[in-house]
């Protein structure tokens, strides 16, 4: 069930340029089911800023009732969020949306996980779950530059991990699709989260593969009530990213 809770900050850690890892504790964690779900965060009481911020769940620890988010402190809201310290409270609504279906991969299969920038975080919990289920994971993670890279080692522990940067300052230079074309990895299905062009390029690169893509859209309510976050679907209809998604099987969303 979706809950709204004032959760306590356990830890706030800067892990790359402008990138923060925030660990929160509270009951709400117990409701988290799927990797790829997100929470909607009110960073401050009052109306400055006036809207919540959607942030993916990056890691879930049900036993400790804690979960992690990884986010970029870019604008007004996330900058305020990055000032929260251990012991502070944060108003969290969640878990929201439908995440990545782990059950779509069979034990023994190989899953390709492709993330771009702040699309990388939800892949971490996904990869952990897949590995727990005996699925091999390959990670291709794209960033702007070396100083934006995060969680490289964490992903490496779970499977082959390739870093791609736009300027070549870390890993391979270029786009994730450049690296994929070059390495041509063997895999059964793919999961991805990142900018629209990346998702589109992936769909095009692997027309035959089963795949699941996570989308971003500006949100109001975050629960499906306001129609702020709709996206067009290939069948001429529409879906709400917040409640029908954010993860959709390939081919559903018009790219």
């Amino acid at each position, binding site marked *: 069930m*979706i809950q*709204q809770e004032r959760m306590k900050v356990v830890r706030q850690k800067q892990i790359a340029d402008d990138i923060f890892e925030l660990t929160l504790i509270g009951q709400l964690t117990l409701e988290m089911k799927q990797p790829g779900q997100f929470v909607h965060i009110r960073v401050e009481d009052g*109306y400055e800023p*006036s809207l919540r911020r959607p942030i993916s769940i990056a890691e879930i620890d049900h036993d400790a009732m804690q979960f992690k988010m990884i986010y970029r402190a870019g604008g007004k809201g996330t900058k305020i969020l990055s000032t929260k310290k251990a012991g502070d409270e944060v108003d969290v609504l969640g878990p929201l949306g439908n995440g990545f279906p782990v059950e779509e991969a069979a034990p023994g299969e190989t899953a390709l996980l492709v993330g771009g920038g702040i699309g990388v975080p939800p892949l971490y919990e996904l990869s952990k779950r897949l590995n727990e289920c005996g699925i091999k994971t390959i990670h291709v993670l794209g960033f702007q530059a070396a100083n934006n890279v995060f969680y490289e080692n964490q992903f490496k522990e779970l499977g082959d991990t390739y870093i791609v940067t736009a300027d070549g300052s870390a890993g391979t230079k270029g786009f994730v699709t450049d690296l994929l074309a070059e390495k041509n990895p063997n895999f059964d299905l793919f999961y991805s989260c990142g900018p629209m062009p990346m998702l589109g390029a992936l769909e095009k690169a692997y027309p035959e593969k089963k795949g699941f893509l996570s989308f971003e*859209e*500006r949100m109001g*309510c975050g629960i499906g009530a306001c129609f702020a976050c709709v996206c067009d679907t290939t069948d001429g209809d529409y879906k709400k990213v917040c409640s029908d998604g954010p993860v959709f099987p390939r081919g559903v969303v018009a790219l």
Partner: protein
Amino acid sequence: MSNRLKVELPGLSLKNPIMPASGCFGFGQEYANLYDLNKLGSIMIKAATLEKRRGNPTPRVAETSAGMLNAIGLQNPGLEHILQHELPWLEQFDLPIIANVAGTETADYVEVAKEISKAPNVHALELNISCPNVKCGGIQFGTDPQTAKELTAAVKAVSSVPVYVKLSPNVTSIVDIAKAVEEGGADGITMINTLVGMRLHEKTGKPVIANGTGGLSGPAIKPVAIRMVYEVSQAVNIPIIGMGGISNVDDVIDFLSAGASAVAVGTANFVDHFVCPTIIEQLPAKLDELGYDNITQVIGRSHR
């Protein structure tokens, strides 16, 4: 106890004067996952148009100081779907529903009003002549008194339930429009819809919202809404459901004081998803604090 919050309006016997505003609560399904909708006084459901509407391109929302812009563009599944799915689903609740009716010409409005007003749980219509976010739709009816009056009369003629008209604040004299719809036979007024606004991208200077302009809502507009309710309540003899920036129990008291008989909460539902039940819970203590037995005693006290 709950008796203290009871308000009687044309067509609407409200257990309390708090309801979500149209467009901010869908058709209730999503919030029903969060709390028991029976707690609410009513629900103003999302605008219904004759045909299914896809709405505007995204981005459709943008944040502003103490408010937000939206240009959803009246996206909704269309009259038929609402009659066959959304309204029947809502019948499980003891809720008099207010159906928001939109259109692009009089015939649309009339058709939707006629059909939707027959639904057993629709106890009133909210005639949306004020949506700023659709081309050739809505708002032009809301800016000219004569047009507003005629549309009201046309809808009133076919509706099986009382008709409330939702006014636009983007006018020189909202009192003139209010008087006109009263003359047209409106049973009540709901106000205010959003103020037309715009936000630009810092980098590019282009509008953030794909539609260009959007409707401004939230606490930022409350002073404008209060002023308008204060003025209109003095000028007409039909009740007002007030809205615009309500986010807590004090805001509710303000709107009632200014002359509204009930209120709707919009944007605040996105920020505190439990804001409506929270306000309802806090109202009795607030009445005690102010020294009133009954919520109806607060209505219009600014003018006494």
